Protein backbone atom coordinates (compact mmCIF):
# COMPACT_ATOMS: atom_id res chain seq x y z
CA UNK A 1 0.00 0.00 0.00
CA UNK A 2 1.60 3.25 -1.06
CA UNK A 3 -0.90 5.74 0.33
CA UNK A 4 -1.18 7.19 3.80
CA UNK A 5 -3.71 5.49 6.04
CA UNK A 6 -5.43 7.20 8.94
CA UNK A 7 -3.02 5.35 11.23
CA UNK A 8 -0.08 6.84 9.35
CA UNK A 9 -1.62 10.30 9.59
CA UNK A 10 -2.13 9.94 13.32
CA UNK A 11 1.44 8.69 13.76
CA UNK A 12 2.65 11.78 11.92
CA UNK A 13 0.44 14.14 13.92
CA UNK A 14 1.65 12.67 17.20
CA UNK A 15 5.31 12.44 16.23
CA UNK A 16 6.18 15.11 18.77
CA UNK A 17 3.31 14.45 21.16
CA UNK A 18 0.79 17.26 21.11
CA UNK A 19 3.26 19.97 20.13
CA UNK A 20 1.74 20.51 16.72
CA UNK A 21 -1.99 20.93 16.31
CA UNK A 22 -2.43 19.64 12.79
CA UNK A 23 -0.83 17.62 10.01
CA UNK A 24 -1.28 18.74 6.41
CA UNK A 25 -0.80 16.24 3.60
CA UNK A 26 -1.79 16.10 -0.05
CA UNK A 27 -5.25 14.56 -0.37
CA UNK A 28 -4.08 12.52 -3.35
CA UNK A 29 -1.75 10.61 -1.01
CA UNK A 30 -4.44 9.48 1.44
CA UNK A 31 -5.39 5.82 1.05
CA UNK A 32 -8.94 6.11 2.35
CA UNK A 33 -9.69 8.91 -0.10
CA UNK A 34 -8.11 6.95 -2.96
CA UNK A 35 -10.24 3.95 -2.03
CA UNK A 36 -13.44 5.98 -1.79
CA UNK A 37 -12.77 7.52 -5.16
CA UNK A 38 -12.07 4.11 -6.75
CA UNK A 39 -15.27 2.64 -5.25
CA UNK A 40 -17.40 5.61 -6.19
CA UNK A 41 -18.18 6.51 -2.59
CA UNK A 42 -18.51 10.13 -1.55
CA UNK A 43 -17.39 9.50 2.02
CA UNK A 44 -14.52 7.18 2.93
CA UNK A 45 -15.39 4.07 4.90
CA UNK A 46 -15.55 4.64 8.69
CA UNK A 47 -15.45 8.42 8.24
CA UNK A 48 -18.44 10.47 9.30
CA UNK A 49 -19.25 13.65 7.47
CA UNK A 50 -19.65 16.60 9.82
CA UNK A 51 -19.43 19.48 7.41
CA UNK A 52 -19.25 20.28 3.70
CA UNK A 53 -15.69 18.97 3.49
CA UNK A 54 -15.03 17.91 7.05
CA UNK A 55 -15.12 14.42 8.48
CA UNK A 56 -14.94 12.85 11.89
CA UNK A 57 -12.66 9.84 12.18
CA UNK A 58 -12.72 7.65 15.29
CA UNK A 59 -9.90 5.22 16.00
CA UNK A 60 -8.54 3.44 19.06
CA UNK A 61 -6.30 6.48 19.50
CA UNK A 62 -9.26 8.78 19.81
CA UNK A 63 -11.39 11.07 17.74
CA UNK A 64 -9.94 13.19 14.95
CA UNK A 65 -11.20 15.67 12.39
CA UNK A 66 -10.11 15.43 8.76
CA UNK A 67 -10.71 18.62 6.81
CA UNK A 68 -10.47 18.52 3.07
CA UNK A 69 -9.41 21.72 1.28
CA UNK A 70 -10.23 20.96 -2.36
CA UNK A 71 -8.97 24.31 -3.60
CA UNK A 72 -5.41 23.41 -2.64
CA UNK A 73 -5.70 19.62 -2.63
CA UNK A 74 -4.85 19.33 1.05
CA UNK A 75 -6.17 17.14 3.82
CA UNK A 76 -5.62 18.47 7.35
CA UNK A 77 -5.86 16.08 10.29
CA UNK A 78 -6.27 17.37 13.83
CA UNK A 79 -7.56 16.07 17.15
CA UNK A 80 -11.24 16.66 17.65
CA UNK A 81 -12.23 19.22 20.23
CA UNK A 82 -14.85 18.48 22.80
CA UNK A 83 -17.46 20.56 20.98
CA UNK A 84 -17.14 19.77 17.34
CA UNK A 85 -19.87 21.56 15.36
CA UNK A 86 -21.77 19.48 12.90
CA UNK A 87 -22.68 21.68 10.00
CA UNK A 88 -25.20 19.37 8.47
CA UNK A 89 -25.00 16.69 5.86
CA UNK A 90 -24.93 17.79 2.26
CA UNK A 91 -25.34 15.85 -0.88
CA UNK A 92 -22.71 13.22 -1.52
CA UNK A 93 -22.10 14.51 -5.06
CA UNK A 94 -20.76 17.81 -3.78
CA UNK A 95 -18.31 16.07 -1.48
CA UNK A 96 -17.26 13.82 -4.34
CA UNK A 97 -16.55 16.85 -6.47
CA UNK A 98 -14.42 18.25 -3.66
CA UNK A 99 -12.41 15.05 -3.35
CA UNK A 100 -11.72 14.71 -7.06
CA UNK A 101 -10.81 18.39 -7.28
CA UNK A 102 -8.38 17.86 -4.40
CA UNK A 103 -6.72 14.95 -6.18
CA UNK A 104 -5.79 17.14 -9.12
CA UNK A 105 -4.05 19.73 -6.97
CA UNK A 106 -0.92 17.88 -5.85
CA UNK A 107 1.92 19.86 -7.44
CA UNK A 108 3.74 18.19 -10.28
CA UNK A 109 7.06 18.81 -8.58
CA UNK A 110 5.92 16.67 -5.67
CA UNK A 111 4.10 13.97 -7.60
CA UNK A 112 7.10 11.82 -8.43
CA UNK A 113 6.69 9.32 -5.63
CA UNK A 114 7.26 11.64 -2.70
CA UNK A 115 4.77 11.55 0.14
CA UNK A 116 5.25 14.75 2.09
CA UNK A 117 3.55 16.31 5.05
CA UNK A 118 3.82 19.34 7.22
CA UNK A 119 3.06 19.56 10.92
CA UNK A 120 1.45 22.89 11.66
CA UNK A 121 1.90 24.54 15.03
CA UNK A 122 1.10 27.74 16.78
CA UNK A 123 1.36 31.13 15.15
CA UNK A 124 4.54 32.98 16.01
CA UNK A 125 3.12 36.45 16.19
CA UNK A 126 0.13 38.48 15.16
CA UNK A 127 -3.46 37.40 14.74
CA UNK A 128 -4.44 33.91 13.72
CA UNK A 129 -4.82 33.62 9.99
CA UNK A 130 -4.02 31.10 7.29
CA UNK A 131 -0.85 32.97 6.34
CA UNK A 132 0.38 34.05 9.78
CA UNK A 133 3.92 32.91 10.54
CA UNK A 134 3.85 29.53 12.22
CA UNK A 135 6.02 26.86 13.67
CA UNK A 136 6.01 23.93 11.29
CA UNK A 137 7.91 20.71 10.73
CA UNK A 138 8.34 19.33 7.25
CA UNK A 139 8.37 15.55 6.89
CA UNK A 140 8.60 12.81 4.33
CA UNK A 141 6.85 9.46 4.65
CA UNK A 142 8.63 6.21 3.86
CA UNK A 143 5.91 3.85 2.57
CA UNK A 144 8.13 0.77 2.97
CA UNK A 145 9.12 1.41 6.60
CA UNK A 146 5.82 3.24 7.19
CA UNK A 147 7.60 5.94 9.11
CA UNK A 148 7.80 9.71 9.02
CA UNK A 149 11.17 11.42 8.94
CA UNK A 150 12.33 15.02 8.81
CA UNK A 151 12.55 16.49 5.34
CA UNK A 152 14.84 19.41 4.48
CA UNK A 153 14.99 19.11 0.71
CA UNK A 154 14.28 21.33 -2.23
CA UNK A 155 10.52 20.73 -2.24
CA UNK A 156 9.94 22.73 0.94
CA UNK A 157 9.06 26.00 -0.84
CA UNK A 158 6.56 24.13 -3.04
CA UNK A 159 5.08 22.44 0.04
CA UNK A 160 4.70 25.71 1.92
CA UNK A 161 3.06 27.39 -1.07
CA UNK A 162 0.76 24.55 -2.04
CA UNK A 163 -0.22 23.72 1.51
CA UNK A 164 -1.48 27.28 1.70
CA UNK A 165 0.88 28.50 4.42
CA UNK A 166 2.64 31.15 2.31
CA UNK A 167 1.24 33.32 -0.46
CA UNK A 168 2.05 32.11 -3.97
Amino acid sequence: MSGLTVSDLIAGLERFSAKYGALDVYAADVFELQQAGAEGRAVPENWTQIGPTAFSVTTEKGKFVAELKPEVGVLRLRRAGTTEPILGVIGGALVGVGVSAAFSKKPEAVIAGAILGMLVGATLSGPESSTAARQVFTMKFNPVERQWRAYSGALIPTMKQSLGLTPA
Partner: protein
Amino acid sequence: MGDEHAEVYRLQRARFDRLAGEIARRLAIRLRSESIPHFVTFRSKHPTDVANKLTKKRSEGKRKYIEAGANLGDVMLDLAGVRIVVYEPGLEKRAADIVRREFVLADGPESDIDCEKPPIEERTQADGYRASHLIVKAPDDDPLTIGAVCEVQVCNIVAHVFNEFEHDIEYKLKKATPSEKTKQALALVRRRTRELEEAVTDLMKRHKRDVSTQELEINDAQELRQGLEQVLGRTVTGDVETLFNMSRGFFSPLTVHHFNVRNAMEIGARLATQLGVMVTDDALLLSLALADTKRAEVSDFLAELRENHPDASGGLVDAIRQLVGGSRL
Protein backbone atom coordinates in the same frame (compact mmCIF):
# COMPACT_ATOMS: atom_id res chain seq x y z
CA MET B 1 65.88 25.76 -23.58
CA GLY B 2 62.34 26.81 -22.90
CA ASP B 3 61.14 23.97 -25.11
CA GLU B 4 63.08 21.33 -23.19
CA HIS B 5 61.60 22.44 -19.91
CA ALA B 6 58.18 22.70 -21.44
CA GLU B 7 58.54 19.08 -22.56
CA VAL B 8 59.51 18.00 -19.04
CA TYR B 9 56.54 19.96 -17.70
CA ARG B 10 54.26 18.28 -20.19
CA LEU B 11 55.11 14.98 -18.50
CA GLN B 12 54.47 16.46 -15.06
CA ARG B 13 51.37 18.39 -15.99
CA ALA B 14 48.90 15.82 -14.70
CA ARG B 15 50.19 16.45 -11.18
CA PHE B 16 49.33 20.15 -11.36
CA ASP B 17 46.02 19.40 -12.99
CA ARG B 18 45.13 17.09 -10.09
CA LEU B 19 46.21 19.68 -7.52
CA ALA B 20 44.24 22.53 -9.10
CA GLY B 21 41.13 20.35 -9.35
CA GLU B 22 41.31 19.24 -5.72
CA ILE B 23 41.87 22.75 -4.40
CA ALA B 24 38.99 24.05 -6.51
CA ARG B 25 36.73 21.27 -5.23
CA ARG B 26 37.49 21.95 -1.57
CA LEU B 27 37.07 25.69 -1.95
CA ALA B 28 33.75 25.30 -3.77
CA ILE B 29 32.39 23.20 -0.88
CA ARG B 30 33.51 25.74 1.70
CA LEU B 31 32.26 28.76 -0.26
CA ARG B 32 28.88 27.12 -0.71
CA SER B 33 28.52 26.26 2.96
CA GLU B 34 29.20 29.90 3.84
CA SER B 35 26.61 30.86 1.20
CA ILE B 36 28.92 33.01 -0.89
CA PRO B 37 27.60 32.90 -4.48
CA HIS B 38 30.54 32.21 -6.74
CA PHE B 39 32.01 30.12 -9.48
CA VAL B 40 35.39 28.45 -9.43
CA THR B 41 37.59 27.60 -12.38
CA PHE B 42 40.88 25.77 -12.41
CA ARG B 43 43.61 24.84 -14.84
CA SER B 44 47.14 23.63 -15.16
CA LYS B 45 49.30 26.03 -17.14
CA HIS B 46 49.55 25.19 -20.80
CA PRO B 47 53.03 23.90 -21.83
CA THR B 48 53.25 26.54 -24.55
CA ASP B 49 52.63 29.29 -22.01
CA VAL B 50 55.29 27.72 -19.77
CA ALA B 51 57.82 27.72 -22.60
CA ASN B 52 56.98 31.31 -23.55
CA LYS B 53 57.31 32.55 -20.01
CA LEU B 54 60.64 30.80 -19.51
CA THR B 55 61.99 32.25 -22.75
CA LYS B 56 60.80 35.75 -21.86
CA LYS B 57 62.15 35.71 -18.31
CA ARG B 58 65.48 34.33 -19.41
CA SER B 59 65.81 36.99 -22.07
CA GLU B 60 65.22 39.54 -19.31
CA GLY B 61 68.13 38.01 -17.38
CA LYS B 62 66.03 36.69 -14.52
CA ARG B 63 68.47 34.41 -12.75
CA LYS B 64 66.13 31.92 -11.16
CA TYR B 65 64.58 31.15 -14.53
CA ILE B 66 68.00 30.77 -16.13
CA GLU B 67 69.02 28.36 -13.40
CA ALA B 68 65.67 26.58 -13.26
CA GLY B 69 66.04 22.83 -13.01
CA ALA B 70 63.67 20.10 -14.05
CA ASN B 71 61.23 20.88 -11.24
CA LEU B 72 59.67 24.01 -12.66
CA GLY B 73 57.24 24.21 -9.76
CA ASP B 74 60.04 25.60 -7.62
CA VAL B 75 60.27 28.62 -9.90
CA MET B 76 56.85 29.10 -11.43
CA LEU B 77 54.19 29.20 -8.76
CA ASP B 78 51.18 29.25 -11.08
CA LEU B 79 51.58 25.92 -12.83
CA ALA B 80 48.42 24.97 -10.92
CA GLY B 81 45.88 27.77 -10.90
CA VAL B 82 42.46 28.28 -9.37
CA ARG B 83 40.25 31.31 -9.82
CA ILE B 84 37.40 32.19 -7.48
CA VAL B 85 34.92 34.70 -8.88
CA VAL B 86 32.35 35.96 -6.38
CA TYR B 87 29.15 37.54 -7.64
CA GLU B 88 28.80 40.15 -4.95
CA PRO B 89 31.43 42.90 -4.82
CA GLY B 90 32.82 43.10 -1.32
CA LEU B 91 32.87 39.36 -0.72
CA GLU B 92 36.34 38.90 -2.19
CA LYS B 93 37.95 39.35 1.20
CA ARG B 94 35.64 36.72 2.72
CA ALA B 95 36.59 34.33 -0.06
CA ALA B 96 40.30 35.05 0.37
CA ASP B 97 39.96 34.45 4.13
CA ILE B 98 38.40 31.08 3.37
CA VAL B 99 41.40 30.20 1.20
CA ARG B 100 43.74 31.13 4.06
CA ARG B 101 41.76 29.00 6.53
CA GLU B 102 41.50 25.97 4.28
CA PHE B 103 45.10 25.77 3.11
CA VAL B 104 48.63 26.51 4.26
CA LEU B 105 50.10 29.47 2.44
CA ALA B 106 53.47 29.15 0.77
CA ASP B 107 56.44 30.96 2.28
CA GLY B 108 56.20 34.73 2.67
CA PRO B 109 57.68 37.58 0.63
CA GLU B 110 61.04 37.06 2.23
CA SER B 111 61.35 33.74 0.47
CA ASP B 112 63.59 33.64 -2.59
CA ILE B 113 61.28 31.27 -4.40
CA ASP B 114 59.41 34.04 -6.12
CA CYS B 115 60.08 37.66 -5.37
CA GLU B 116 57.92 38.89 -8.20
CA LYS B 117 54.66 37.64 -6.75
CA PRO B 118 54.52 37.47 -2.97
CA PRO B 119 52.24 34.76 -1.54
CA ILE B 120 49.65 37.19 -0.29
CA GLU B 121 49.08 40.18 -2.43
CA GLU B 122 46.17 42.42 -3.18
CA ARG B 123 46.67 44.15 -6.44
CA THR B 124 44.96 47.37 -7.24
CA GLN B 125 47.20 48.48 -9.99
CA ALA B 126 47.01 51.79 -11.78
CA ASP B 127 45.98 49.92 -14.92
CA GLY B 128 42.86 48.72 -13.13
CA TYR B 129 43.60 45.02 -12.67
CA ARG B 130 42.08 43.90 -9.36
CA ALA B 131 42.35 40.52 -7.73
CA SER B 132 43.87 38.82 -4.71
CA HIS B 133 46.60 36.30 -5.39
CA LEU B 134 47.48 33.64 -2.86
CA ILE B 135 49.97 30.84 -3.25
CA VAL B 136 48.91 27.79 -1.28
CA LYS B 137 50.69 24.55 -0.55
CA ALA B 138 49.24 21.26 -1.70
CA PRO B 139 47.42 19.41 1.11
CA ASP B 140 49.60 16.72 2.63
CA ASP B 141 46.99 14.00 2.27
CA ASP B 142 47.77 13.31 -1.40
CA PRO B 143 51.20 11.82 -2.15
CA LEU B 144 50.83 12.64 -5.83
CA THR B 145 50.70 16.41 -5.31
CA ILE B 146 52.53 16.95 -2.04
CA GLY B 147 55.26 19.56 -2.31
CA ALA B 148 53.59 21.46 -5.13
CA VAL B 149 51.95 24.87 -4.84
CA CYS B 150 48.92 26.42 -6.46
CA GLU B 151 48.04 30.03 -7.19
CA VAL B 152 44.53 31.02 -6.13
CA GLN B 153 43.13 34.24 -7.56
CA VAL B 154 40.07 35.88 -6.04
CA CYS B 155 38.03 38.67 -7.61
CA ASN B 156 34.42 39.70 -8.11
CA ILE B 157 32.57 39.07 -11.34
CA VAL B 158 32.63 42.68 -12.48
CA ALA B 159 36.38 42.95 -11.93
CA HIS B 160 36.76 39.57 -13.65
CA VAL B 161 35.25 40.96 -16.84
CA PHE B 162 37.66 43.86 -16.88
CA ASN B 163 40.65 41.74 -15.86
CA GLU B 164 40.10 39.40 -18.78
CA PHE B 165 39.97 42.22 -21.33
CA GLU B 166 42.94 44.00 -19.77
CA HIS B 167 44.97 40.80 -19.71
CA ASP B 168 44.32 40.02 -23.36
CA ILE B 169 44.86 43.53 -24.63
CA GLU B 170 47.80 44.76 -22.59
CA TYR B 171 49.55 41.64 -21.31
CA LYS B 172 49.28 39.07 -24.04
CA LEU B 173 49.65 41.48 -26.94
CA LYS B 174 53.16 40.60 -27.95
CA LYS B 175 54.01 42.51 -31.07
CA ALA B 176 51.40 45.25 -31.25
CA THR B 177 50.92 48.29 -29.06
CA PRO B 178 47.35 49.22 -28.28
CA SER B 179 46.24 52.33 -30.11
CA GLU B 180 45.12 55.40 -28.21
CA LYS B 181 41.54 54.67 -29.16
CA THR B 182 41.87 51.15 -27.74
CA LYS B 183 43.39 52.51 -24.55
CA GLN B 184 40.58 55.02 -24.22
CA ALA B 185 38.00 52.29 -24.77
CA LEU B 186 39.69 50.14 -22.14
CA ALA B 187 39.68 53.07 -19.71
CA LEU B 188 35.95 53.50 -20.37
CA VAL B 189 35.35 49.82 -19.61
CA ARG B 190 37.37 50.24 -16.40
CA ARG B 191 35.20 53.19 -15.32
CA ARG B 192 31.96 51.43 -16.20
CA THR B 193 32.95 48.31 -14.30
CA ARG B 194 33.74 50.37 -11.22
CA GLU B 195 30.35 52.07 -11.52
CA LEU B 196 28.66 48.70 -11.90
CA GLU B 197 30.46 47.42 -8.81
CA GLU B 198 29.23 50.37 -6.79
CA ALA B 199 25.68 49.95 -8.10
CA VAL B 200 25.61 46.23 -7.27
CA THR B 201 27.05 46.91 -3.81
CA ASP B 202 24.34 49.48 -3.19
CA LEU B 203 21.67 47.10 -4.46
CA MET B 204 22.82 44.31 -2.14
CA LYS B 205 22.87 46.66 0.85
CA ARG B 206 19.28 47.71 0.17
CA HIS B 207 18.17 44.12 -0.31
CA LYS B 208 19.80 43.08 2.98
CA ARG B 209 17.99 45.89 4.71
CA ASP B 210 14.68 44.77 3.17
CA VAL B 211 15.18 41.16 4.22
CA SER B 212 15.92 42.08 7.81
CA THR B 213 13.45 44.90 8.36
CA GLN B 214 10.42 43.90 6.30
CA GLU B 215 10.19 40.31 7.45
CA LEU B 216 10.66 39.13 3.90
CA GLU B 217 10.65 35.37 3.50
CA ILE B 218 14.13 33.93 3.31
CA ASN B 219 14.37 31.69 0.28
CA ASP B 220 17.95 30.50 0.36
CA ALA B 221 21.12 30.45 2.41
CA GLN B 222 22.47 33.56 0.76
CA GLU B 223 19.42 35.60 1.82
CA LEU B 224 19.75 34.20 5.31
CA ARG B 225 23.37 35.26 5.48
CA GLN B 226 22.52 38.73 4.18
CA GLY B 227 19.69 39.15 6.67
CA LEU B 228 21.84 38.01 9.59
CA GLU B 229 24.64 40.35 8.53
CA GLN B 230 22.24 43.23 8.37
CA VAL B 231 21.04 42.55 11.92
CA LEU B 232 24.51 42.00 13.35
CA GLY B 233 26.15 44.76 11.32
CA ARG B 234 29.10 42.58 10.38
CA THR B 235 29.99 39.52 8.30
CA VAL B 236 28.55 36.23 9.44
CA THR B 237 30.80 33.17 9.65
CA GLY B 238 30.20 29.45 9.45
CA ASP B 239 27.99 26.94 7.68
CA VAL B 240 25.00 29.15 6.96
CA GLU B 241 23.72 26.65 4.42
CA THR B 242 23.18 23.95 7.06
CA LEU B 243 21.58 26.50 9.37
CA PHE B 244 19.21 27.42 6.53
CA ASN B 245 18.44 23.78 5.64
CA MET B 246 17.56 23.11 9.27
CA SER B 247 15.54 26.20 10.00
CA ARG B 248 13.44 26.39 6.84
CA GLY B 249 11.70 23.18 7.89
CA PHE B 250 10.77 24.73 11.25
CA PHE B 251 9.10 28.00 10.31
CA SER B 252 6.67 29.14 7.67
CA PRO B 253 7.45 31.62 6.34
CA LEU B 254 11.06 31.75 7.45
CA THR B 255 12.25 35.29 8.21
CA VAL B 256 15.31 36.61 9.94
CA HIS B 257 13.16 37.68 12.88
CA HIS B 258 12.52 34.08 13.85
CA PHE B 259 16.15 33.70 14.83
CA ASN B 260 16.00 36.45 17.47
CA VAL B 261 19.61 36.87 16.48
CA ARG B 262 21.23 38.80 19.29
CA ASN B 263 19.55 36.78 21.99
CA ALA B 264 20.33 33.56 20.16
CA MET B 265 24.03 34.40 19.88
CA GLU B 266 24.25 34.72 23.67
CA ILE B 267 22.33 31.53 24.25
CA GLY B 268 24.42 29.72 21.66
CA ALA B 269 27.65 30.88 23.28
CA ARG B 270 26.45 29.67 26.68
CA LEU B 271 25.48 26.28 25.25
CA ALA B 272 28.80 25.97 23.42
CA THR B 273 30.65 26.54 26.69
CA GLN B 274 28.51 24.00 28.50
CA LEU B 275 29.16 21.46 25.77
CA GLY B 276 32.87 22.14 25.67
CA VAL B 277 32.84 23.28 22.04
CA MET B 278 36.16 25.04 21.54
CA VAL B 279 35.83 26.36 18.01
CA THR B 280 32.69 28.33 17.31
CA ASP B 281 31.32 30.48 14.54
CA ASP B 282 28.09 32.42 14.04
CA ALA B 283 26.18 29.65 12.25
CA LEU B 284 27.14 27.16 14.97
CA LEU B 285 25.97 29.44 17.78
CA LEU B 286 22.67 30.20 16.06
CA SER B 287 22.16 26.51 15.30
CA LEU B 288 22.72 25.58 18.94
CA ALA B 289 20.23 28.18 20.13
CA LEU B 290 17.63 26.99 17.62
CA ALA B 291 18.25 23.32 18.39
CA ASP B 292 17.81 24.00 22.10
CA THR B 293 14.19 24.99 21.48
CA LYS B 294 13.45 22.03 19.22
CA ARG B 295 15.51 19.15 20.47
CA ALA B 296 13.20 16.37 19.33
CA GLU B 297 12.78 17.83 15.87
CA VAL B 298 16.50 18.49 15.46
CA SER B 299 17.31 14.94 16.47
CA ASP B 300 15.09 13.83 13.60
CA PHE B 301 16.70 16.36 11.30
CA LEU B 302 20.23 15.12 12.03
CA ALA B 303 19.43 11.65 10.72
CA GLU B 304 18.14 13.14 7.49
CA LEU B 305 21.09 15.53 7.26
CA ARG B 306 23.66 12.74 7.18
CA GLU B 307 21.88 11.22 4.22
CA ASN B 308 21.01 14.26 2.13
CA HIS B 309 23.61 16.91 2.97
CA PRO B 310 26.98 15.14 3.24
CA ASP B 311 28.89 18.44 2.91
CA ALA B 312 27.40 19.86 6.11
CA SER B 313 30.07 21.20 8.43
CA GLY B 314 31.30 18.52 10.82
CA GLY B 315 31.83 20.95 13.70
CA LEU B 316 28.31 22.34 13.56
CA VAL B 317 26.67 18.95 13.20
CA ASP B 318 28.74 17.43 16.01
CA ALA B 319 27.86 20.28 18.36
CA ILE B 320 24.15 19.95 17.66
CA ARG B 321 24.35 16.20 18.04
CA GLN B 322 25.98 16.61 21.42
CA LEU B 323 23.29 19.05 22.47
CA VAL B 324 20.32 16.89 21.56
CA GLY B 325 22.13 13.76 22.68
CA GLY B 326 22.75 15.36 26.07
CA SER B 327 26.46 14.74 26.50
CA ARG B 328 29.57 16.88 26.59
CA LEU B 329 32.20 16.81 23.83
